[in-house]
Structure formats: structure tokens, C-alpha cells
């Protein structure tokens, strides 16, 4: 077996053991904090899929995340149960992505211009959601809240049992399960015939077209899958925080997702997850300890990452470890 593959399997096993064992050694507060890391990891996975595998640079993943969060909140609060709300959280961003994607890919928009349109769409959502405050703006029994957001978002309940919310630890395990499942599913998709076509299209669009591939359709499907994953993460976030607000549609958050992916590296699915964990952990730690200004540190890391490590951190780590293994033999 190739050293990289052994490393990957070993690392996955270790991480799984750590994740599953964590609630037994950590206090509840830490488990709750860990849960949010899992949630944003799922979001980073969506970026790893759309940008890393599909080659589509988009500012829009945060928008789909936000749509998922709002869909969950509105659905759960109106129907009193999270069962359908999760479905809505996946469905709404997917439909939005299908429409936007059709508009973009069938219009042959690509590169930086596509980036601009996705950025603009996020901004439109931000402006609209931010301004719908006041009692008149409601969906069902829920007031949209404008810049105040929607408080009192209910947690997930046990499937089929609306009166029984998931406690912190079970919710944590659900997050682990979802992260692992989504990762496995995307990994499988990546190596499936569909995934290999997507990668070929990313490598050279014209060549793929000349071989008969309808690249517009492939990119659309990639985009919709990414939106669905982001929407799922959004639902988890809304349930975790008990709150949704328009900040999720702002460019600061959109930028963060891109930073995570760039720092961790988009060549591998796990890269953006690594970037996300590192950057979020670092910002939290800096914020708590007031050692240096968070923004400056983040900015320096970001610039450094682009200039010195354009492929990201994960490939570098991988190289070190497998090189170390080789030398030991």
C-alpha cells in the first residue's frame, strides 16, 4: 500500500477515535464548542468540493449556508419539529443553487466574473435579509427580524419525536456522524466516474467539451451538491446557536470560508477542514488571550499562505509525515 494511503487511513482512524471518545474526557462546555468546529468543518467540506474538486471559485457558499440556516429556523419554528426543517435546509439552497447555477454556467460565465456574481448575490441576500425588520415581515408565525435576526431557534429533536430535543452530547455525535458521512460521500463521489469527469473538466474545459462532455451540466450538478452540503451545515448551526442573523450573508464570513480553504489547501477534501480548524482555533485563542490583534494575525497568515504555501498546509504536512515514514525504513 502506498505510504500516503496508509497515512490517510491511519489519520482517519486516529481522528475518529478522538472524536468519538471526546465526550468521555471533556466537560460539556468543551463538547459544545467542539460541536461548532464540526459544523464549520462540514461547511468547509462544501468549499473543498465546489472549489477543490469542481474548480469553481465562489463567494457563495456562505449564502447557501445562510439560506439553510434561515430555512431550518423558519420551518422548525412554524412546524414545531426539526424533522422536515432539516430537509428544507438542504432543499432551499439546492434550488437556489440550481437557479443561480443555470444562470451562470449556461451563460458561460466563469473565473473572476463568476466570483463577482456569487459575491453580488450574497450581498443582495444580505441587504434584503438585513432590512426586513418590523412585524410585517413574517413567514408563518415567525418574524424575519431584519438586522436583529431570529432568536429562539429550536434545537434538533429525536427523529419522529418532536417533543424530545437532542441534548448536547447526542447532538455532538450527530454532528460527528454527519461530518463523517458527508466526507465519505464526497470522497466516494470524487473517485466515481462522475467525479473523474468533473476533475477532467476542471483540468481543461475545452478538451472535456471536445470529448463530448456537457460541462455546463456537470458544473451545475457540482454547484448544487456543494450548496446542499452548505445548507445542511447551516441547519446544524442554527440549531446549535438557537439563533440566525443576516451576518451570515456578509462578505466577512464569505471571506473566512475562502481563507480556510486556501490555508488548508484545496487539493484534498480534508484540506479546508484543516484550514478551518486551525484558523478558527487560532482566532478564538487570540481573542481570548489578547496577545495580538486577531485581524492582523489572520491577515499575515493569509498573505503568507498565498505567497509561501500556495498549495496549502495539508499537502505539506502529508509530505513531511510520509517522508518521515520512508526514512524510518
Amino acid at each position, binding site marked *: 500500500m502506498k505510504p500516503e494511503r496508509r497515512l490517510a487511513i491511519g489519520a482517519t482512524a486516529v481522528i475518529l477515535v478522538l472524536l468519538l471518545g471526546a465526550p468521555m474526557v471533556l466537560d460539556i462546555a468543551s463538547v459544545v464548542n467542539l460541536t461548532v468546529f464540526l459544523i464549520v468543518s462540514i461547511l468547509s467540506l462544501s468549499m473543498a468540493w465546489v472549489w477543490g474538486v469542481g474548480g469553481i*471559485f465562489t463567494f457563495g457558499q456562505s449564502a447557501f449556508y445562510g439560506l439553510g440556516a434561515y430555512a431550518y429556523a423558519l420551518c422548525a419554528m412554524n412546524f414545531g419539529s426539526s424533522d422536515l426543517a432539516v430537509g428544507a435546509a438542504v432543499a432551499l439552497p439546492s434550488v437556489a443553487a440550481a437557479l443561480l447555477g443555470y*444562470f*451562470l454556467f449556461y*451563460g*458561460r*460565465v*466563469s*473565473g*473572476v*466574473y463568476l*466570483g*463577482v*456574481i456569487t*459575491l*453580488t*448575490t450574497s*450581498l*443582495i441576500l444580505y*441587504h*434584503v435579509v*438585513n*432590512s426586513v425588520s418590523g412585524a410585517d415581515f413574517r413567514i408563518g408565525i415567525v418574524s424575519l427580524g431584519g438586522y436583529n435576526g431570529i432568536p429562539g431557534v429550536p434545537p434538533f429533536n429525536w427523529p419522529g419525536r418532536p417533543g424530545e430535543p437532542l441534548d448536547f452530547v447526542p447532538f455532538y455525535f450527530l454532528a460527528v456522524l454527519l461530518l463523517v458521512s458527508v466526507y465519505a460521500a464526497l470522497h466516494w463521489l470524487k473517485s466515481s466516474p462522475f467525479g473523474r469527469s468533473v476533475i477532467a473538466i476542471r483540468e481543461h474545459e475545452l478538451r472535456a467539451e471536445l470529448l463530448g462532455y456537457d460541462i455546463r451540466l456537470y458544473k451545475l450538478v457540482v454547484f448544487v451538491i456543494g450548496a446542499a452540503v452548505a445548507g445542511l451545515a447551516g441547519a446544524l448551526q442554527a440549531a446549535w446557536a438557537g439563533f440566525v442573523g443576516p451576518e451570515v450573508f456578509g*462578505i*466577512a464570513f464569505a*471571506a473566512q470560508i*475562502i*481563507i480556510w480553504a*486556501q490555508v488548508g489547501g484545496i487539493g484534498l477534501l480534508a484540506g479546508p477542514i484543516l484550514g478551518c480548524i486551525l484558523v478558527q482555533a487560532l482566532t478564538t485563542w487570540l481573542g481570548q488571550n489578547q496577545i495580538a*490583534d*486577531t*485581524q*492582523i*494575525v*489572520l*491577515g*499575515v*497568515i*493569509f*498573505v*503568507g*499562505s*498565498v*505567497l509561501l504555501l*500556495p498549495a496549502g498546509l495539508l499537502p505539506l504536512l502529508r509530505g513531511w509525515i510520509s517522508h518521515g515514514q520512508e526514512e524510518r525504513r
Partner: protein
Amino acid sequence: MDPLNISFQLAYSIALLLLTSLGLAIVFGMMRVINFAHGEFLMIGGYACVLCTQAGVSLWVSIWIIAPLIVGAVGWFMERLVIRHLYGRMMDTILATWGVSLVLTGLASIIFGQQQRGIVAPLGSFELSGFRSSWYSVALIATAFVLLAATYAALRFTRAGLLARGTMQNAQMAEALGMHTGRVYAWTFAAGAAVSGIAGAALAPLTGAVPTIGATYVTKAFITVITGGAQALTGTVAASVMFGTVSELVANLATPVAGQVALLILAIVLLRLMPEGITSRFFRRSL
């Protein structure tokens, strides 16, 4: 609706977009670099203006001399340290300049604090058959067009502008002819930064200086320049006119937020119809 009022508001809206996008347009049009720290150039220019004026320097000197010198220098250093490693890699420049933007915003927060600093806009107000406004707003509109004209003239009619255009068109040829292309890039980027500095300084009396003000302008500037297309000067003017007009009209008919949203929707529609910007279809041979 009062035609004088509306015309003024339109002119102001267009001028504002133009002013805040021009520096970015220069850099994008000449170097195909998208500088996401552009907002911070505006911010630094604003601080230069406010602080110097508060220290007793004339407002006009602060805006037209001090601000461009300072921001131009910042731009020059940024080009030499960061940008020059990333030519041809547009995505990477976006990302790296975003990082620089975070650093600059953070530094400004530390050095100047989070509080907004302001100065009073000079020149007072006027009234014209029921229509009231401030002379400074008029000055701002004038500033936008003066800057635009100066940039166009510099590129078209000066030797430096010719050298810059030549290098941008064909760097290898320029080097073969003995031009130091690294220097041209650095100075062009610095020039774009200086223009942004002037713009930021000119705005400061109206908006005040605060570390986060960059974020307010950068996205719209970015959208305006990209929608304008590769021929950045003409493109940015075209985009500013269209966006300024639509956003102002809609804002008057509905709400300011609706105006913003209308601008954004128009951008999407334009980019969909002309996927490489306005000047990929019209004014293709312009500057």
C-alpha cells in the same frame, strides 16, 4: 420630482462610485491585478486628510498632496513585497490582497482606535430655486471628474503613461527595449494607490475616518470595475454611470436598500449578458 434635485443626486451618485473605483480600475486595467486592499487605501487617505487637517494643514493640501504621497508609498511597498510575486495569478492576488487588507485594517484599529474621527466639511451650503446642498458635495463631484481626466491624460499624453501602457501590453518587448518593467509595475501600482488616497481623503470630510471604512467601499468598487471589463477606465465610467443612475432612481422611488439591491441585480444582469464585462462588447479599443 424636482429635475435639479434629481440631476444632482444622480451626478453625486455616479461621481461617488467613480471616485471610489478609479484607483482599483487603474490597477486592474493596467496590470490585471484585483487589489482587495483598495478599501484600505481609501481609509488611509481618509486618515491622512483628517489628521493633517486637524493638525492645521490646509484641507486641499491634505487631500491633493499629502494623502496621495502617503498612500502611494504604501502601495509601492505593497507591490514590491506582495503583488510582484503573483503576476498572472489573478485568484491568488485577490486572496493575498485580502490578507493585506485585514492587516491594514487591524493596524489602523490599533494605531487610531475604533472611534470615528471627523472634520467639518468646508465651503458651507447653498440654495438654488428650492434645491439645497453643500458646496463640498459639488466639490466632490468635481474631484471625481478631475481625477478621471487627469488619469486619462496621464496615460494618453505623457511619456510615463506611454511607458506604462507599453509595458502592460507586452512586458517582454518593453524589457527588450531597455525598460525596467519591475519599476513600471511598482510605480503604476503606486499611482493607482495614490488616486485611491486622494479619493479617500476627499471623502473624509463627509464620512469621517474609521478603520473599517474600507469594507464599505471595496465590494461596490470591485463589482463596478469588473462589470466595466478589461478596458478599465472606460469600463468603470460606463459601469459607474449605469449603476449610479439605477441605484439613485430606485432609491428615490423606493428605499435606499432597494437602490442598493437594484444596483446589485443590474450588475448580475450585465455580467450575464456580457460575461467579460461591458468593454468586452462595447468600446473595445478604448483605454
